């Protein structure tokens, strides 16, 4: 099992999620984050005054998958989250030691 984290542009969330469910992935945990990278922040209007925010809102998907699904999940995310513009995001893959389904106590691949 591996954990895949994908940091993507917020407007891409539904498209990525739909594409993942087509390859059989339905368990996903999503976190709203702030991204600092090559793509600069943006200007916001607050009470009529303009001020610069140096980060950009991003969304982080966390998906735990069996080893044999890793490359397919990466390809699916890459294909659907890409716009070709700076700030499209990153995919990170991590090793894991154990997974437990809290409801049933199942462990390992049976738990995801």
């Amino acid at each position, binding site marked *: 099992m591996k954990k895949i984290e994908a940091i993507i542009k917020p407007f891409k969330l539904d498209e990525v999620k739909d594409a993942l469910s087509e390859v059989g992935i339905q368990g996903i945990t999503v976190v709203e984050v702030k991204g600092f990278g*090559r*793509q*600069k922040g943006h*200007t916001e209007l607050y009470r009529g005054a303009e001020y610069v925010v140096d980060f950009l809102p991003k969304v982080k998907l966390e998906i735990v998958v069996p080893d044999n699904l890793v490359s397919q999940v990466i390809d699916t995310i890459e294909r659907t989250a890409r716009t*070709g*513009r*700076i700030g499209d995001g990153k995919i990170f893959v991590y090793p894991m030691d154990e997974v437990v389904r809290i409801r049933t106590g199942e462990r390992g691949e049976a738990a995801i």
Partner: protein
Amino acid sequence: MSGVRGRALGAYLGLAVGDALGAPVEFMTQAEIRERHGLLREMVGGGWLRLRPGQVTDDTEMSLALGRALLAPGGFELRAVAEAFAAWIRSRPIDVGNTCRQGIRRFMMDGTIKAPPREWHAGNGAAMRILPVVLASLHDPEACRTRSLAQARITHNHPLSDAAVETLAEMTRRLVLGESKPAVRGLVDELVRRSPLFRFDPYPGRASGYIVDTLQTVAHFFFGSEDFETCLVGVVNRGGDADTTGALAGMLAGAACGVDAIPRTWRRTLDPKVAREIETQVEVLLALGASVS
């Protein structure tokens, strides 16, 4: 201003003008540029970096950093060049290319001045900054070649980047010395013979950060246009890595046509601090180059 000085200044100001003209439409497609600007013919500012009109980006700033290292006592010293790039990164520049950042960070961490060979190093970040080396070794083709490659290797180590750096350096050197456009065409034809990937006739029409796309775009508009302005307007309206293709086209067209060929409105809008440093660097770099021959 004419002669070598006029062409050298034309190349360096041309590079900065191309950068400032193209940066507001970097990463945009041709269609998006047409929709938003019609035919882009002036320095509008804005873009993904929210630039002021006439503001330059990493393309010009890395060239200036390299120039500063060459002007320091001791002449061409690779560690001094890497140090100048590191000082530039610490100044929190408006933009830094990914491969350039990785290479400069590697130097800052472990002091090595040569990047290991990598398949992803075929970007245009090393070629865009060669001009100060060319001007400082105008009369020494071998030094021009080896020094252009050595500074490139601080961040980029890929045969396609090397091939483009060598060709662009020699083209610019000969143009500043007064050779004609058709005369330097042979250098690009030689490059295409050695690496057919660079073939630009018929022009494939891509303008990304990939050095092959960049060189094809620059060669297509440089050889396909009669004057500085037409060349640059053609290049930047292609979009893609428009500041870098603009900078390289501006360097070549400026070297060929001389500083007086650069439209007055573009020279006036260019960041004055940048223009001043360029004018100072050209004088001293040419003096360095002259003393070598």
